[in-house]
């Protein structure tokens, strides 16, 4: 498969005809009714819901709350487990969309669990890259705890890199004092790329019940309200670490995509935007060429080069 065109981008393990992919957890395994609304072959890639070693039931409901320009979720990594995903979910996805690159988001409660999931997933031949989720704020064991300490993050990255047969993108948590430090640690651990950002830890309280709306109490905040935080973090990290970044956090439009590229991104993922605009991905893909024209950008590849070299001069 060759990729060409002004929207095409190339990242470790990912030759993408365009940079747009649904973010993990917001598009299941492609097996939902959003898939009736457009052809998933139009996507640059898809990042599937987190996979853990065993089936996870997730958190009690309510799992969803709304905030101004944001959404709180506490799904808690519900998934049928890596074996079922490899056996039931990915073959169906692969069969329906043979040319759609798949990025598998993986999570675990222990390093050993992460390693096993990585092993199985990457050996399947059905995924192009792994997205190492060290940033889920909604589970007590594992998740975000791996993403807030640089030493732990580095060690986990090394362990997963050791077994993975495909490139590994580490998905960073924004709930840290210094994201650059974590990015540098996972880079030192051998990460092939970064995915950022995961959700910010938040809460809503119901005035009548006086209790948090989410059964889990806290949840992860996503959506356009967090975009400025994502842009800042990507800007800081891309200047400090020489790894490609899959950007996410409140992207809704082609403008937002370009803003992420100007911050230092190489590709983008769309999560929360689906909830109000189910065709957010194809809409953005369609709008991008016009936006590039308007801004005098020849191609996204060129834009990446320009931004990265401007960064060097900046420093």
């Amino acid at each position: 498969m060759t990729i060409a065109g002004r929207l095409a981008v190339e990242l470790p393990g990912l030759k993408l005809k365009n940079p747009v992919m649904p973010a993990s957890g917001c598009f299941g395994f492609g097996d939902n009714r959003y898939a009736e609304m457009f052809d998933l072959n139009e996507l640059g890639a898809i990042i599937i819901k987190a996979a853990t070693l065993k089936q996870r039931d997730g958190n009690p409901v309510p799992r969803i709350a709304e905030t101004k320009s944001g959404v709180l979720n506490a799904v808690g990594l519900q998934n049928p487990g890596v074996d079922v995903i490899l056996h039931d979910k990915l073959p169906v996805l692969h069969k329906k969309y043979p040319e759609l690159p798949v990025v598998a988001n993986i999570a675990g409660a222990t390093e050993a669990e992460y390693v096993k999931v990585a092993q199985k997933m990457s050996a399947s031949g059905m995924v192009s890259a792994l997205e190492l989720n060290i940033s889920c704020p909604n589970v007590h064991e594992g998740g975000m705890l791996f993403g807030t300490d640089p030493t732990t993050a580095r060690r986990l990255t090394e362990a997963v890199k050791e077994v993975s047969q495909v490139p590994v993108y580490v998905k960073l948590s924004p709930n840290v004092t210094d994201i650059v430090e974590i990015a540098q640690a996972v880079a030192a651990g051998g990460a092939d790329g970064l995915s950022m950002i995961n959700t910010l830890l938040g809460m809503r309280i119901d005035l009548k019940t006086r209790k948090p709306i989410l059964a889990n109490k806290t949840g992860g905040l996503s959506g356009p309200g967090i975009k400025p935080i994502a842009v800042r973090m990507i800007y800081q990290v891309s200047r400090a670490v020489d790894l490609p970044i899959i950007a996410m956090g409140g992207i809704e439009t082609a403008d937002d995509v370009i803003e992420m590229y100007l911050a230092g991104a190489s590709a983008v993922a769309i999560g929360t935007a689906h909830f109000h605009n189910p065709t957010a991905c194809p809409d953005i893909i369609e709008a991008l060429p016009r936006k590039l024209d308007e801004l005098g950008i020849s191609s996204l590849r060129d834009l990446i080069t320009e931004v990265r070299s401007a960064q060097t001069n900046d420093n």
Partner: protein
Amino acid sequence: MLTKNNLEIAAQEELAPGIYRIVLHGEFDYAAVRPGCFVMLQLPDEAYQLRRPLAIAASNETQKTIALIYRVVGDGTRLLSKLTPGMLLSILGPLGNGFSLGADNSAEEVLLVGGGTGLPPLMMLAQALNEKGYAVTTAIGFRTASMAFGEKEFEHNGKLLLATDDGSKGFKGNVGELLAKQSVKKYAKVYACGPAGLLQMVQKRFAETETEIYLSLESRMACGVGACEGCVVSTKDGIFNKRVCLEGPVFDGREVIL
């Protein structure tokens, strides 16, 4: 194929204090609508990230309209109630499995039980069942007489049992107490939609009967299409194994765990 469409507000009226009926006009997959289906409605304000799930209360393919009936409970429905005819709203749907209607030309007796904002899908259901020949009885409850709505529609499609908490109209008490005074064995099916307490009451009341039980659930939703695992519910077969938006909102009352 699922689509989102911009439908125009054709009319909006307040049926009872804080209860509105909004009629939307335009392209929609009318053929796919079944009683119990819902839509995800986008509010015209960018601060609202989530579409609102609302049941379809009526659908008219010829006139190209659907009607929704909603209660103002929060900011979103408050904004919705202020919108005026002519404005466009993005509607995703129809969604969900809808109620199982059973065979045509049946003369079986069926019971519909509703409370609060559980009534809208029952309105469409009552009509569909009546048209199929079923003998429909509907039992609904309100806080007080002035809050009541939908009586005409239900009476038009069968028998109506009305309860008000304060006795200002019909039976004094809630629907559960109303039904406690009745024999319910005759009903081949019972369909219920409303607050959790009402569904639990129906589930319990009919547990020992032969009656088929269909319960329509509510849950906080993000996607409405089975993509996010936000709206799950447990059944006898597993924990959080069903999505209200995709496998529901109507569940077998003997399977679902409330």
